[in-house]
């Protein structure tokens, strides 16, 4: 699927947009944001200050987590990172160049 993206970018752009929309409209989701490799947020549904804060902090944490996993076994790689706190859950899915962060309030 990844290589096909390079050949048909338009096709996949719509699909990705749709997926992100669905995630945002899912039950309990507070916000979503896409952060690039340098920690700069590209797209977000939250306000600027919160986004910048989340982006900076989570980027560092994800890099650390990824480094940890790979140090233990270089053939392994981080798939995703979940941080569950009292108020909500932060889910981070790292990609080759990007980081997708979703904050959800799981109904209990």
């Amino acid at each position, binding site marked *: 699927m990844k290589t096909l993206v*390079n050949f048909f970018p338009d*096709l996949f752009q719509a699909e990705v947009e749709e997926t992100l929309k669905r*995630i945002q409209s899912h039950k309990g989701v507070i916000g979503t944001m896409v952060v690039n490799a340098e920690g700069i947020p590209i797209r977000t549904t939250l306000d600027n200050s919160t986004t910048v804060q989340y982006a900076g902090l989570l980027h560092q944490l994800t890099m650390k987590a990824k480094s940890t996993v790979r140090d233990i076994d270089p053939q392994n790689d981080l798939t995703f990172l979940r941080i569950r706190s009292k108020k909500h859950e932060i889910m981070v899915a790292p990609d080759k160049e990007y980081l*997708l962060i979703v904050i959800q309030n*799981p109904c209990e």
Partner: protein
Amino acid sequence: MLPASSKMPHKQPPPPRKQSISMGRGARKRDEDSGTEVGEGTDEWVQSKATVKPPDQLDLTDAELKEEFTRILTANNPHAPQNIVRYSFKEGTYKLIGFVDQLAVHFTQVGNLIPKDSDEGRRQHYRDELAASSQESAKVVISETEILEEEEEPKEVEAGSQTDVPIVEASEKMAEEELMTPKQPKERKLTNKFNFSERASQTFNNPLRDRECQMEPPPRTNFSATANQWEIYDAYMEELEKQEKTKEKEKTKTPVAKKMGKMAMRKMTSMESQSDDITKVTQAAKIVERMVNQNTYDDVAQDFKYYEDAADEYRDQEGTLLPLWKFQNDKAKRLAVTALCWNPKYNDLFAVGHGSYDFMKQSRGMLLLYSMKNPSFPEYIFSSESGIMCLDMHVDHPYLVVVGHYDGNVAIYNLKKPHSQPSFRSSAKSGKHTDPVWQVRWQKDDMDHNLNFFSVSSDGRIVSWTLVKSELVHTDVIKLKVEGSTTEGLEGLQIHTVGCGTAFDFHREIDYLFLVGTEEGKIYKCSKSYSSQFLDTYDAHNMAVDAVSWNPYHTKVFMSCSSDWTVKIWDHTIKTPMFIYDLNSAVGDVAWAPYSSTVFAAVTTNGKTHVFDLSINKYEAICNQPVVAKKKNKLTHVQFNPIHPIIIVGDDRGHVTCLKLSPNLRKMPKAAQIQS
């Protein structure tokens, strides 16, 4: 210093002793030699004319006396050995060394003089000058130290290797100096006391000007990197990929597509650079969506994995179905579920075909593939113009889905390609059915490794389709004829009434054997090789046969269900059914369980699911449960998951419900024996 040695041909008579008193000229010479030892005084005193010879002196003739002896002064060392022999390893013998070192050292002394021009000499001279210049500007107070320096200076100039001596002397001098008044520094210039005047002139100092040029500092960036184990690993993997790429390039260089390759490469690179940012988040977005869903349906996921109905321990003969997820999609809301199929490779993926059973209301169809990991949205969506009536997934190629449509067409969808259009499609030219296709089934690849599948339709044809070089080629296998219904038409033509096939199933082990259910309620046992005759006929039902299915373990047993409210179990050698079950409502579908030969499930139009276990109860269902909320909802299909203890049930509103089987329903028989 070489000693003078005399080399004489003859033996020399022993030199006269000091005691010998000899007179005469010849003797006088000797005497003088000896006389020098004794002293001049003795010589004058002893002046007798008589020569006294010692008794043991040699008597030589005059000729012999006058013989001249040559004395040669050579520079040879008398102490040096003349016949040194050394062992030569090269030749393996002792060899006489001709040349012997003639050097004899008489006296050595280590001196402390160094030449002026040598490095050390120059260095000391330089130090001298420094010390001297510092002395001139020094005050009287520090003259003592100067003096000490001065004193030490000459010592240094001498560069004595014998350091203890100068230090000792210096320390002595120091002691002396402390007592003494400070000496005067260097001698001053002698000047005329009368009319000496010093004249000096100063030249004009040119004004100095500083000229500087400063440029902008070169732009600097901070660069930092880490070298972890995985970074090193990544670098190696990249290298490996590059090498492999170059190898491939070399391989593909030979064909003519050289230019094409370059163009393609350029296109690829430009595409890669142009592709929008957001598309690369696809994979991450998928994962996150699943995570979000997992959170929402957390309890369901937990149930699926771990919940076992504890009450089953007390209910020996009964089991329950626990509803898990419900899959539905807006686009398929008004379409009924017409087909369900689990993916043979990925156990969480299943395909749902949507269409309509209603003859009057025919619209489009949809093929949705869901994963249990994401219950809110399907993984793949395909839409078609005509309703989908049946589908099947290939065992070896789990990405190929064959679909049969209401308009009689068959199509193959390739999940690897994201297009909404099917990869291959039949058409009127390529022999599509003239009536809805009720069932399709993949077969083993034929001898040319072409993909092959069968379809059955109401037009009475069972067709075998082969995918030959991206084209569907069809072969009619059997035409279903209703026996005893040939009528005499015009001009003696025999018109056969064509039967309508509604379901078929292939035997698991015997390749050519299959069953066909028809609309008239009959089941025919057929063989792929016989195209005109049936092997056997069973008068199964009063209404159309909705499904037939061979037992996965008992090769002789099969099951059929029909809209006449019954489910029947047969042995294919016996013409009458072994078991008949009346379920009070039209039965939509039956399916055998993959884990047991005695368990099967049936769904009815009153929204109930019945699960039977023949080893426990031969006459009644052990589970009888309404699965859908509204009673009007008709259940159309049911499928067991090959691995997990769940079933999916489709209804005519387009919903698919996933249910978990309680332990009682999952009992595996110890001795799998069905008793007829």
